[in-house]
């Protein structure tokens, strides 16, 4: 055994390394907080309490988590085909448009149980359609998907702005928003669902969409690892030439994958439009599509990892808001810095500490081996 064992066991790779990375991110964040003259320990306490400490906080955390699960899964599915979908933001925006239009169309006529499945379909179709064009250009024209999906985010923003300012704006309103849907098109909030069973929890934007996020996670796991299509996607991701040689129609797989990715991202629209705001409004995606990239990266493109990473980012968003609320000197820019550091350490520098850990681990196992030999 001349070369040391380079592979690490799974629990270090997907358990310990992310934990160390988060700890490093918080260490640096703590240093920055200390620099501006605040107590880092106190800040961490406020953040954790603000994210998990009481039911309203937990509700907000899980509400953000729902968004990140959708966008994280969207990025992950595309990533398995080696496609980098940066367009989650635009796909979610347009998906929300689909949901909103359907609600505006049907809310006066049919009950929720008719609207909901149709809204999920409308959302998926709109999101998939928005991803289809960049996918087609990638598959048949060779335009790089990173560039085109970024561009489509801008086009989505421009389109939504045009529609809200000129077409969908509620009469007499100064704010570019559609009219509020009738209550038949409101997804029940979790505090309402709990109330049906007699349990009382504080109101928060958390709604039924989180269940949809759970189903989406199971679906993605099953689809990627247990179906022929998933196999084709992963094969394309590993080696396009080999995939083609083995008879996979790579162009169709690229388009199919991107449409699925777009549909997953679009469900942010279900959570935001049907679940929380009950009207179409500007900027409801608020960067969730971009954060989805970090979530997917941290979650190693696996649904379980994505759920955990989404929870972390949900906690960062909600805990961060709480921190800005409690300590006036900590501004929103500071919260962005902390979020940025977590992304930096867990995403970009994910493997920074890996060689060190490998060395420690191999020393450790070799010592054990010598001990056994002796």
């Amino acid at each position, binding site marked *: 055994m001349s070369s040391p064992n380079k592979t690490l066991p799974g629990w270090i790779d997907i358990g310990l390394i992310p934990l160390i990375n988060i700890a490093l991110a918080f260490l640096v964040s703590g240093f920055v907080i200390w620099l501006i003259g605040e107590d880092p320990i106190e800040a961490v306490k406020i953040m954790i309490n603000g994210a998990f400490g009481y039911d309203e906080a937990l509700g907000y955390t899980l509400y953000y988590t729902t968004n990140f699960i959708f966008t994280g899964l969207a990025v992950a599915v595309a990533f398995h085909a080696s496609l980098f979908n940066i367009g989650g933001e635009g796909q979610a925006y347009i998906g929300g448009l689909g949901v909103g239009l359907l609600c505006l169309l049907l809310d006066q006529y049919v009950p929720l149980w008719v609207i909901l499945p149709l809204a999920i379909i409308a959302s998926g179709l709109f999101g998939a359609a928005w991803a289809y064009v960049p996918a087609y250009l990638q598959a048949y024209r060779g335009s790089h998907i990173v560039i085109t999906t970024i561009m489509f985010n801008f086009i989505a923003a421009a389109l*939504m702005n045009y529609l809200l*300012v000129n077409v969908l704006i509620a009469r007499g*309103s*100064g704010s570019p928003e559609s009219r509020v849907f009738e209550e038949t098109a409101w997804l029940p909030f979790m505090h309402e669902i709990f109330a049906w069973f007699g349990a009382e929890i504080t109101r928060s934007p958390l709604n039924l969409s989180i269940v949809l996020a759970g189903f989406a996670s199971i679906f993605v796991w099953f689809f990627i690892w247990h179906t022929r299509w998933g196999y084709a996607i992963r094969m394309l991701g590993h080696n396009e030439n080999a995939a083609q040689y083995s008879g996979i129609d790579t162009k169709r797989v690229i388009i199919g994958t991107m449409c699925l990715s777009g549909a997953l991202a679009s469900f942010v629209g279900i959570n935001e439009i049907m679940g929380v705001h009950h009207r179409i*409004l500007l900027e409801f995606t*608020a960067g969730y599509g971009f954060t989805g990239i970090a979530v997917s990266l941290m979650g190693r493109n696996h649904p379980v990892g994505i759920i955990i990473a989404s929870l972390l980012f949900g906690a960062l968003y909600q805990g961060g*808001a709480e921190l*800005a609320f409690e300590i006036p000197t900590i501004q929103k820019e500071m*919260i962005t810095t902390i979020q940025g550091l977590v992304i930096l350490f867990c995403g970009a520098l994910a493997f920074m500490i890996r060689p060190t850990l490998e060395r420690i681990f191999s020393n450790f196992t070799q010592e054990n081996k010598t001990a056994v030999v002796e």
Partner: protein
Amino acid sequence: MKKLFQTAAASFIAMAAATSYADEIKPAVVFDMGGKFDKSFNEGVYNGVEKFKSETGIEYKEFEVTNPSQREQAIRKMAQRGSNPIIGVGFAQEAAIAKVAQEYPDIHFTIIDAVVDLPNVQSVVFKEHEGSFLVGVLAAMASETNTVGFIGGMDIPLIQKFACGYAQGAKYVKGDASVLSNMTGTTPSAWNDPGKGSELAKSQFDRGADVIFAAAGGTGIGVYQAAKDAGKLAIGVDSNQNHLQPGTMLTSMTKQVDVAAYNTFKTAMEGTWKPGILSLGLAENGVDWALDDNNKSLITDAMTAKVKEAREEIVAGKISVHDYMEDNSCPSL
């Protein structure tokens, strides 16, 4: 000795209590997504509440929202902590204020730039079209090419309202004046894109404009710079921006957002805060045009006289300036 200490301590506590009773208000402000340093609307509110703080020594609670769901969350949280009054900045907070104000009927809310019809809400709106009309008059009179330009920030009805008032003012003095209008963008980044502001200004100059009114937040800085470089004129917005490029700033259309925010806290402290709609136009000095040392060489006596006349006629109701937001259309553009 011990007793003396106790009395001293007791009287000290009583004194502290007395002062805290006098300043019993716990004001709060929730800024919108632009953030409190957006060089525009939110910053106006920030300046107003900061002025209140430095004058009275009363601290205020604040929050800057970063996504739409936080509006309601932040306002409710302020209400839960017993803040009163609470200022919501911007039309986007309309729905959130309406919801929370119903839940907390004893707390006073002020929303700026939108109307919420509830017994515990004060709605402050500005007649930007009237102020824009006046600077439109000035622009058309200063123009030699008979072409004036408008550069807006994000394409929303509020900014169309500026554009529409401006166009009406220009056409009021010169019926055949042409008005060029461009919006910087469709996302909030349009409020802070001086590079694009400068490009749009250059293109409007190329198309014959020689005075440009920018209602675009931080983007305006680029417009003013481009006007200076080209030797043309520009008009500032929201606060008096004449000092930014002395000599090429024709004037500024001021909107007293800071005064509105300051007055909210001040009247709450004095117990004279009232619910209802405060519609601040020329008559209320809520909007105006700025004249100071930096631009007085550019303003002729004829212009002063004409703008004074227009102002009086608007206040008297002889000229009615069309408000874009009434029907989302502008006959003059």
